[in-house]
């Protein structure tokens, strides 16, 4: 096992609160929801397992773990109402056999809402986001009451918000003047100085 402190990204001998905080942050980052329909989802699961092990290890000496292993990775599908065919396709999508699932769907002529939904999932895995979005949209339009479809569509939108949120947290566009404003200020100051007989920027 690797150094559990390193896995959680904290210094050795960190307090229980620090461990918990780091664990929560890391779990959020690698949570299956974040990597749903992502070809690297199994790697994220591996990472999560590693985090859980590290956390368990560190907590064993301090106090019994209260959160329990609530972040387990198995996701059950809502099978109600779907016929066997679509369930089979789902199994293939979940186990990563995207090509098989895609061939099955392409050969199936009854294009109902679940067909579009599953096709959307496959496109997402392949990285065809535009097609994925329009297929999900079609699934939702055909069956507006289905929570699963609506949820998938919403998730695509929130994934993008997450990315942006991450950028803003790192300082993107946050406060302070941007470069254009800085240039403008410099140029204005230069003009003022020149009017007053001095010069701020020698070359202009």
């Amino acid at each position, binding site marked *: 096992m690797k150094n559990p402190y390193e896995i959680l990204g904290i210094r050795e001998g960190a307090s229980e609160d620090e461990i918990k905080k780091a664990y929560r942050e890391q779990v959020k980052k690698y949570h299956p929801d974040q990597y749903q329909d992502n070809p*690297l989802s199994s790697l*994220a699961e591996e990472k999560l397992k590693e985090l859980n092990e590290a956390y368990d290890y560190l907590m064993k000496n301090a106090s019994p773990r209260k959160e329990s292993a609530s972040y387990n990775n198995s996701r059950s599908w809502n099978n109600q109402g779907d016929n066997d065919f679509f369930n089979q396709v789902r199994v293939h999508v979940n186990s990563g056999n995207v090509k098989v699932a895609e061939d099955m769907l392409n050969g199936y002529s009854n294009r109902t809402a679940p067909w579009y939904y599953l096709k959307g999932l496959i496109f997402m895995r392949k990285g065809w986001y535009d097609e994925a979005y329009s297929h999900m949209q079609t699934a939702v339009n055909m069956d507006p009451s289905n929570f699963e479809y609506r949820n998938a569509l919403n998730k695509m*939108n929130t994934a993008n918000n997450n990315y942006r949120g991450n950028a803003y947290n*790192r300082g993107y566009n946050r406060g302070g003047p941007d*470069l254009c404003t800085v240039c403008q200020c410099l140029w204005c100051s230069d003009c003022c100085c020149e009017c007053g007989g001095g010069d701020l920027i020698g070359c202009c």
Partner: protein
Amino acid sequence: MFGYILPEKPEMKIKEYELFRAYYCGVCKSLGRRSGQLKRFLLNYDSAFLAVLLSAVSGDTPVVKQETCIAHPIVKRYVVKNNGIVDYASDINVLLAYYNLEDDKQDEGTFISHAGTVLLRRTFKKLKRKYPAKCDIIESRLNELHKLEKEVCTSMDMAAEPFAKLMEEVTAYEPLCKDKKINDILRWIGYNLGKWIYILDAYDDIEDDIKDKSYNPLVSQFDYANEAEAGFKERIRDRVEFNLTCSLDQIAKAFELLEVKNNVGILENIIYMGMLRKTEKILGIGSCRKVEKSV
């Protein structure tokens, strides 16, 4: 189509900025040393990013020296030296530049593209012997791209596929890809980089392509009907932004799985901010509307 991958300089630490430039200078010097001085004009920031990324994955600390060069003959700058990854990035730079010129030659037949391919031919042949498998894949992807362009493909996903796969191939640097996990992650980063570049470039070129009546995946997907170009761009902006952000989100997620120890600050800066900035600039939704070409 190149030079979109830039850092967000104002948010960089000075040391990160210096190191990024050291990689950039390293690629430039490697170009000059191994492919001939003239090829240094082909340098772009994308290959510096490739060098920074692969070097981070390899985990080796780069050897940095202070040197002068033609462009900066007096003040010495930091340069990453004797680095196999930097050499690889410079080879890829030349290869892609050659294919790009070849492409221009076939499409427009400008003087520069003719002269360029002639000048590059010898270096290209050398590189083709060095990376026969990679070159074969790149060429077959480019043929697919040509075919889709000729057929006036009406799906941006389908049209972007060959270029995305090409970038996937380029990013999968063989010595690092023996590890299956790293291979999968690097390939997914490369795929999404290619996708992002292709769609961003398509949006950037809308006016020119309409004027020249050349193929543009966005123009054909969204049924451009002799409307004002600005109006058309406005109409499709949200959809294009969605697609570009999807790719960036996937790059970020894949990067988080890499567990790199070197160059983390630079890579996070480029992935989370530099590429978002570029996206917003080209879509015209950022604070600076004008697109800057260099750092």
